[in-house]
């Protein structure tokens, strides 16, 4: 049985759930009956490995569990010594585990359970840990200034300084709730409990380069967008989620829907999607461009952490179907090339060839006309014949000679074949830009 998994969530009851966005459903990986929330509450999750099939989960009682989604097996790796809630979890390239706990200790563990290195970062409560592409670790928390640690030795590379006293000359409390590296790994973005988003450049200065206030509640979740530069998405304790531009230090857009405190936001690596989870027991997926709520999954338990896979069922379906169509066309191509060779030999058939080319040209003109008529028709055809329309656009522009013309022929024939499929005429008001929502709907129709 292959479970469809778009994302994994860890609940406050201790349940690990895998969520399928296509079906808007979830399935519990751990059996709920046997859980004890006071021990098994999931505090941190991380992908182990590049293929994102294995998840490492840290529980409240500091035991690490490994879930392999391919085989479906959960195993307890080992229990971490020491005390404190594990706030940060990361698997390095060398398959070592970095953990950051509440008490202010950052530790490096081997897969077997041996402690390779351990550092007491400071006196405050460690709340946030972010990791670079190179493995450099940024750590901060309540009364714990932001600092970066070297991946191998866990020594402090850089430490930040607190902001100037406020207008009443009172010390601004140090309370970072989230710390994340930017995409290039050079800058750090943090969100604070004093409703600020801060931007640090370790190479430039110790104090934050930019600061921004947003509403009046602590900002509990932060995610740096991987698709667009300089954008960051944050969520606060009242369920407000917004996207910010770091250059202007202004909010761009709001994502509506969350009713409770947002605990975790993850942005997808290639598609303009954001997944968020919170205490209101829902996982929501928003489209970044249209800011609309695309998927909402009810998960019955308060959710703590979220992991989003790169391969999503709502996206990958397109690719699979594309592949099928391409394969079909390739196979047809081969057949027709053989026929063309035969045609070449007989001179009489050359006329047929030219006729065919003329026909094809006419068809192209027709196609052009159709397009000019209205975008609606194009859309409808695209519903059935997605990859073909794209090809049409490419082949129309240059005037082809010789072999390319014959390729066009074959395509024309294929087009004819495909055009036999009855096109559904609907009155659809569509936008030019297609969101993943619409693509998903179309795929649904196709499947039916």
């Amino acid at each position, binding site marked *: 049985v292959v479970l469809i998994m778009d994302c994994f969530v860890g609940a406050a009851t201790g349940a690990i759930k895998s969520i399928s966005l296509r079906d808007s459903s979830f399935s519990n990986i751990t059996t709920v009956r046997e859980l004890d929330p006071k021990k098994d509450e999931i505090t941190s999750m991380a992908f182990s490995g590049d293929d994102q099939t294995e998840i490492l989960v840290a529980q409240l009682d500091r035991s690490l569990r490994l879930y392999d989604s391919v085989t479906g097996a959960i195993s307890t790796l080992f229990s971490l010594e020491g005390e404190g809630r594990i706030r940060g979890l990361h698997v390095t390239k060398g398959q070592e585990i970095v953990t950051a706990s509440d008490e202010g200790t950052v530790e490096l563990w081997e897969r077997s359970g041996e402690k390779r290195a351990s550092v007491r970062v400071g006196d405050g409560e460690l709340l946030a840990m972010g990791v670079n592409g190179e493995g450099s670790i940024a750590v901060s928390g309540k009364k714990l200034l932001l600092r970066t640690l070297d991946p191998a030795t866990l020594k402090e590379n850089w430490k930040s300084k607190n902001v100037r006293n406020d207008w009443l000359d009172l010390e601004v409390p140090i309370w970072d709730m989230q710390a994340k590296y930017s995409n290039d790994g050079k800058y750090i973005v943090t969100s604070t409990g004093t409703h600020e988003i801060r931007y640090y450049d370790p190479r430039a200065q110790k104090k934050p380069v930019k600061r921004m206030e947003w509403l009046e509640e602590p900002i509990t979740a932060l995610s740096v967008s991987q698709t667009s530069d300089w954008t960051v998405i944050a969520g606060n*304790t*009242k369920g407000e989620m917004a996207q910010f531009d770091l250059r202007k230090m202004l909010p761009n857009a709001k994502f509506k829907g969350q*009713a409770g405190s947002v605990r975790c936001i993850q942005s997808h690596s290639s598609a303009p999607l954001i997944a968020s989870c919170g205490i*209101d027991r829902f996982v929501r997926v928003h489209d970044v461009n249209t800011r609309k709520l695309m998927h909402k999954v009810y998960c*019955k338990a308060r959710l703590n952490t979220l992991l989003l896979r790169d391969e999503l069922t709502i996206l990958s379906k397109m690719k699979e179907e594309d592949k099928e169509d391409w394969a079909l066309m390739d196979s047809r191509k081969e057949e027709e090339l053989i026929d063309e060779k035969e045609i070449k030999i007989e001179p009489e058939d050359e006329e047929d060839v030219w006729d065919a080319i003329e026909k094809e040209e006419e068809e192209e003109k027709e196609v052009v006309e159709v397009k000019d008529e209205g975008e609606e028709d194009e859309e409808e055809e695209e519903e059935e014949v997605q990859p073909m329309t794209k090809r049409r656009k490419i082949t129309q522009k240059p005037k082809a000679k010789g072999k390319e013309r014959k390729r066009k022929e074959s395509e024309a024939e294929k087009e004819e074949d495909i055009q036999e499929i009855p096109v559904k005429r609907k009155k659809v008001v569509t936008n030019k830009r297609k969101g993943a929502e619409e693509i998903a709907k179309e795929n649904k129709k196709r499947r039916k």
Partner: protein
Amino acid sequence: QVVIAMSGKKPKRAEPGGPKEADIVKKKAKGEEGEGKEVKEKKVLSKEEIDEKLREIKQSTTEATLKKKRGDKMQRAAGGKALRLQRSAAKRERQSQRAKLREKYGEELVAKEIPRTIENTREYDETMVNEEDEEVEHDEANDEFAAYYRKDVAPKVLITMSPYAKVKTWKLCYELQRCIPHAEIFSRKGVPLKKVVEQAKAKGYTDLLVVHENMREPNGIVFCHLPEGPTAFFKINNLTFTKDIKKTGSSTDHYPEVVVNNFNTRLGHTIARMFTCLFPQNPEFKGRRVVTLHNQRDYLFFRHHRYEFKKEGTKAALLELGPRMTLRLKWLQKGTFDSRCGEYEWVLKRHEMETSRRRFFL
């Protein structure tokens, strides 16, 4: 009750020969031919006929009223009372015709019409709790109220109010104290709420009720379940004190029964459990006291009654005691009261959530 009413109306409206003829027909059918087939055929036919008849009834009278609606501008201009009377007359006619058919053919074939209400047409809510939902049961077995339900903890309630509260707020506090057994009032005098919470925890209270005041009137209740429990904030919409209710009785010290109605969603479950945690686990039925929290369309109705069973236990006569309140949940926070830095489990965001008339959260 409806049957009785119908039987009451029959002699007035029925045509002189109507029902009697029907009875006669039936008797004849039974008497003449004992063949089942014929009877069945008659029923099948009559069902279709019945449906047709029902449609006719509907069309005939509604068309008439519509015509009247459109036609009589003067009537409309005259204030509409005559129109209303016409419409109600038409409705009664329809009802009586349907009733007649129902008498003839029985309830199965002529089904009663169900009025479309907002509760009937409520939007689908995924968070509705099914009975025997394992995960929700597990969640509830381990949540903040589990100790109360396991009978490990007895409820101990502290009632307080806004600092320097006025007469009405104090009145409400006294009434709540009378309603909830083992409740204590504490006058606020400018102590910050977070400190109140700390002190209450230290003294072993399980619940904290803060009556919030504005413009000399109580307008909200902050309900905090103590050890580490959720905090809910309700807005008081309609408040009547015991004195102002006509025909009240006097309350007693018996532990009341608690009735919690119509909380179907997960959020509703939490609120219902919070409310029951105020009262002791063992109700004293001798006292015949009931406290009800009834949810309808996200409005919570708090009522306090004394009941007495009459007609050999088929009916219960109610005598109202105590305050009468309508509450609306504004937010639910995880953890004790901390409006600034606490995490909210649910917040009512009017522009996002109150867009549909048929969408409710409790």
